């Protein structure tokens, strides 16, 4: 169970990285970033897994609760990630207005 979830998380992370490295569309870059973040969050959440655990709501009915700490991290990190994505999209709108394109390889006015 646990190896599968960790493995999935890492696979999602790698897909995100691959997306960033190989796609030229800015939106896809942002999607890649979200995927990477999702992978990391899955990793964190998986680490809170308890066999047969119940949600961490008092009173713990029916057994051991799962680890609540990763959940709180994940909540925090999700919000932060959402903020990042929102900002990135706002920048893409501005970039599209300036450059008329969302091709990442064409947005290189600053170099050298």
């Amino acid at each position, binding site marked *: 169970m646990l190896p599968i979830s960790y493995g999935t998380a890492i696979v999602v992370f790698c897909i995100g990285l691959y997306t960033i490295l190989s796609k030229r569309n800015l939106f896809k870059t942002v999607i890649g970033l979200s995927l990477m973040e999702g992978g990391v969050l899955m990793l964190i959440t998986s680490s809170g897994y308890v066999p047969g655990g119940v949600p961490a709501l008092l009173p713990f009915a029916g057994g051991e609760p799962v680890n609540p700490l990763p959940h709180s991290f994940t909540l925090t990190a999700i919000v932060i990630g959402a903020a990042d994505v929102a900002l990135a999209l706002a920048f893409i709108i501005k970039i599209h207005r*300036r450059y008329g394109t969302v091709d990442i390889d064409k947005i290189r006015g600053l170099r050298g």
Partner: protein
Amino acid sequence: MNPVLAIVAPFLAAFTIPLFFVFRKKWVGTAVILFGVLSALTALFVAAGGEAVTVMGGWQPEVGIALVVDSLTTAFLILASLGFSASLSAAAETFGYGPWRFYVLFFLSWAATNGIILTGDLFNLFVFFEIFSVAAYLVVAYPPRSWQAIEAGFKYLIFGTVGALFLLIGIAYAFMATGQLNMAILARVLPRAPEATLSVVIGCLVVGLFIKSGTVPGHFWLPDAHSSAQTPVSALLSGVFVKVSLYALIRLAFLLFGSADDRVFFVLLLFGTVTLCLGHLMAFQQEDIKRLLAYSTVAQVGTIVIAIGCASSGGVTAAVYHAFNHMAAKMGLFLVSGVLAEDRASRDIAQMGGLFRHRPLFVLAFCLFAASIAGIPPLNGFMSKWFLLVAAAERGALIPAAAVVAGTVLSAAYYLRPITAFFGPAETEPPHHRPHPVTGAIVALLALLCLVLALAPYIGPLKEGLLAVGRDTVNGARYIERVLR
């Protein structure tokens, strides 16, 4: 004074400025100034209060989030408040108080900076890094009218987000391996983690901080952002923002990685040397004065990373001392070059002829700052370079030390170009002229700061303080004991 106030004061500023805008538009300027003074004073009081540990919510350090003040924190709090105050005054003169959202972002980044410096919790560090970075992307992109600003802000955002992700992975692995987040406790339990986990933790944290601080290979955003941003923002980026990430690197290196292995410090030395060389060599080829300064910042970041990589108290002393020197000099350089570039309406060095006649004091200040950065004796840059060289020699890091001294010659070479231009023949058209009284005053104060810092090794308390920073920081056990007492 409770350390948290150093974080809360700028937060309060950021949260109230919109209310002032909605209800009392005229007071925004006053509020910005007052909150600026308040934030700087709070941070300085916290720094002056000496060592302290406080835990949010009154819990034990393991349960809550601890804020820790020790000598390293003190040094960087002072650095941040000096830098932010200088930049705020320059921004107030350059932008006026119309763009109040800019000031909101400014204070948010100030709060986050103080948060990064004070926090003793790894996840909290990440959260503050995010506030800090988001605010940084936006102040770089201000005003969002020029394409350079937008492109630089966007690239900074992508780099920053990737860096934050690496930081998050590092923190996640550290948490997965130990179940702890307090840095003091982690310093105890993390070395027990398996080898592979440890290398993921250290590698990801190091690379994340490399990206945030502009160390090779994460330096690509830095020249774009520094050269595209407005002058006060460039000064702030170079003077404070980069240093904050280096603070985190110092803290984590000696707390979490120090116990692990010597190889971490080898990596720091290696990448620091590469950064130093690349920064100098790239600055050598720039035509744009702000880009030149930006690449020089890259080189100086490399210098500080080398100092950290020396893994000794002397190295940390050199790093902190150099951070201060670079803050004073590079902020001054950016402010002066901003004024001069405005006079010529161009950032091209070739266009800057004859400015010495036009603004002699600014140009002389430029020469002073440039000499300080290049490490010409007996200015402050030379003193910290000497500290660094001695630390490197003690560590046996000969190639980095040789790179540092070679960098002196290179940086003298490329700083001579704008200086020659300033003193050279004037252009035909008369330059624009707008008085810059506030910027002038700040530049004068920064020049004074440079001179004071140059004397630091000869002023007993300052020297003792600098050495104490190194000793306390390297001694991780002392930190752990103080937090967990």
